[in-house]
């Protein structure tokens, strides 16, 4: 065995793994120096607030990617969950509306997995097209349901206290949404690393054929990953519209890109099998910090979109080199 090269390789892979942390630290340092407003209390609160919707969606996306697939339908799911939930607060009450909203998210995910399984799609590319198509379908349903109009909290006379709490409330010195995030993170982390179903998902992503032949229930794993992704998209939608107190049928636009970006940047490989929700948290943090810094530095949001695309390309390339 070549001992020398093994240890050098180990060093390189450690560096690559922590590249994200390093980049975050560098970005923070640079921006703090250039723009002192960065470290202000208001800005930090702002950062924490942006955490909510994106992190929820990204956590769900992590599972799909670990399972070896991809989900481009989250934007559509968010649109649908948002408009339906907000519209049901008045007639049904906030708790039923909330539950229905989450169910819709899970159903969208379940539908995605049903299509993928029934067609026998095996590759990420096929899943990409199917879920993208479904995104347009879900978005269109959202548009039709809402008639294209946006609903606001001030239109609703019934109690919205739960949503208001999610949107702006506090538990101690932490925001409610942050607590929800911590709870979701804990549950998902335990699920991924410590349960047999979580292991089944990793194995499915590692080698679908081998997993199946070893008796792992691959089909069930696929349903689970998409339902989790749909459910978390639903959670993200609720946090989102609670925060901005309105739900437009296009509210979810761009979330699929940001979510995939967060997962990939965080270090979870697109090839599947390996990864972690904790890494995704780091990825989201980086994406949000980056947006925040670029905002403070006066970079237009369009250019930021382009930068994100560039980083996605770079991150995928880097991920590819790592796996080779």
């Amino acid at each position, binding site marked *: 065995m070549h001992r020398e090269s093994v240890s050098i390789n180990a060093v390189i892979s450690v560096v690559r793994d922590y590249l994200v942390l390093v980049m975050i630290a560098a970005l923070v340092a640079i921006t703090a120096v250039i723009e002192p407003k960065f470290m202000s209390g208001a800005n930090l609160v702002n950062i924490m607030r942006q955490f909510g919707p994106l992190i929820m969606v990204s956590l769900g996306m992590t599972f799909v990617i670990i399972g070896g697939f991809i989900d481009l339908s989250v934007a559509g799911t968010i649109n649908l969950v948002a408009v339906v939930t907000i519209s049901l607060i008045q007639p049904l009450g906030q708790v039923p509306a909330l539950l229905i909203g989450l169910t819709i998210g899970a159903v969208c995910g379940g539908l995605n997995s049903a299509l993928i399984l029934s067609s026998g799609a095996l590759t990420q590319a096929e899943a990409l097209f199917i879920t993208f198509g479904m995104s347009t379908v879900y978005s269109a349903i959202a548009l039709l349901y809402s008639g294209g109009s946006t609903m606001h909290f001030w239109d609703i006379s019934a109690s919205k206290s739960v949503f208001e709490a999610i949107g702006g409330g506090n538990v101690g010195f932490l925001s409610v949404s942050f607590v929800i995030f911590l709870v979701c993170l804990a549950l998902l982390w335990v699920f991924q690393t410590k349960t047999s179903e979580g292991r089944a998902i990793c194995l499915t992503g590692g080698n679908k054929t081998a997993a199946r032949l*070893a*008796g792992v229930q691959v089909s069930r794993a696929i349903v689970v990953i998409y339902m989790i992704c749909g459910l978390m998209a639903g959670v993200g939608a609720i946090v989102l519209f609670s925060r901005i107190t309105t739900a437009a049928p296009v509210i979810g636009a761009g979330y699929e890109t940001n979510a995939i970006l967060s997962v990939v940047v965080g270090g979870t490989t697109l090839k599947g099998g390996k990864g972690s929700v904790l890494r995704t948290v780091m990825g989201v943090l980086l994406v949000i910090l980056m947006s925040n810094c670029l905002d403070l530095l006066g970079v237009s949001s369009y250019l930021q979109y382009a930068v994100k695309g560039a980083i996605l390309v770079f991150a995928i390339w880097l991920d590819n080199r790592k796996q080779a």
Partner: protein
Amino acid sequence: MDTVGSEVILTIKGVSKSFPGVRALDGVSVDVRRGTVHGIVGENGAGKSTLMKILSGVYQKDSGKVVFDGQTIEHTTPQESMHRGLAIIYQELNLVNTMSVGENIFLGRFKEMKGMRGTHAKAGELLESIGCKISTSKLVSELSVSEKQMVEIAKALSFKSKLIIMDEPSSSLTGEEMCELIKIIHQLKAQGISIIYISHKLDEIFDFCDIVTVMRDGHVIDTKPKVDFTRDDLITKMVGRTIENEYPERPRCAGDTLMEVQSINTHKLHDISFTLRKGEILGLVGLVGAGRTEIVRALYGADKVRGHRVLIKGKPVTIRNPKEAKDAGFGFIPEDRKLQGLVLPFSVESNISMASISNFSKFGFIRKSLEKGIGTRQVKALNVKTPSTRVPVRNLSGGNQQKCIVGRWMEISPSIFIMDEPTKGIDVGAKYEIYSLMKEIAERGGAIILISSELPEVLNMSNRVLTIFEGRITGEFDPESTSVDKIMKAALGIVGGCA
């Protein structure tokens, strides 16, 4: 034909080649003469295909000299080799399935042939010259193996090859198709083209080869005109040791009927029914593509098959997917361990524990300590050579990787163990270990269904053999008391010699 005096077209002198941990070729020297059919025999792992890959440019030799048609050959590529007149026809066949016959023959030479019309015209000519009547516009995916081989031969001829290497060409041919091939070989010989014919089937070697080289463990043992060899002589030189030491004593533990399979029917299989007894090793013998793997996959639920019945201990069992098969007591070693058996980037431990996850989880939660125990236990029991159970399984050698898959199933002690090519690409030492393991399993009451392309392996280890031909069971034999010829005839379907 007097071959002794004819000119040498290929000289191999002192060629050696090593891979990490394995010395594949050690000082190999051989001369091939013009216009002869030169057979190379040897067991799996003897070094035959490594040598051929060096000649054709896929591998580069570490040392030694190769002289072809007067030219000394150093570093070369497959394409250069073809242009030089040295063609090789692989067992896996080097054709693009989605393209036509004509285009395949002139792959990459479209311009030279002046486009589609020129390509098909010349291709048609070449095929006719070997008596093949396939239309050049037919897609390769629609051809039978024998027809594909003819396309490959036409391709070799298109390069005006002086030497054509055929690597195990007969493994998927019927008796008739084999006759066709022999006819073509004689034709090529008459044209002054030399043929290197690689095989481990002695009958073919004795049938139409002029000179025979025996290889074993990376060495050339002997090279003589065929007539100077006797069959026993050849076998002894091939194997190098008495056959008894290659396999453990055959287990004789067959007991009551354990499983009954009734009427498996798919578009490839026809009315497959058989029984399996406790403690028995049942061998499935047949050509590549006859349907052996399809049978076990249908049984194991890996392929969607309906309409058949499986009875285990007299009770009907429904198996629609591998999980249900596993629950019913099956174990399954797939044909291709890298693609179908292992998750290569995952640890040895994970790969071994894959099938027994429910054994080390409680209420859905994994107990890491129990999983670790499984890994260490199987690595020890099967003597898997690995620095630790945490390393990625891709770092292990083929034999040790295979042992991991075996260990995976040993952990749950299946009562019906399906093994599809369990010793493919494994060194002799590891093979013996796996044979011993099979014996142990049989002695403990487990039943094994064994598929192998190594006829000696199946014949030496099985208690009973089923011959499969074109999706049908053509015979059931006791390998101890039946002649190899009789079994092979049943496996080849049609009886009869050549014109």
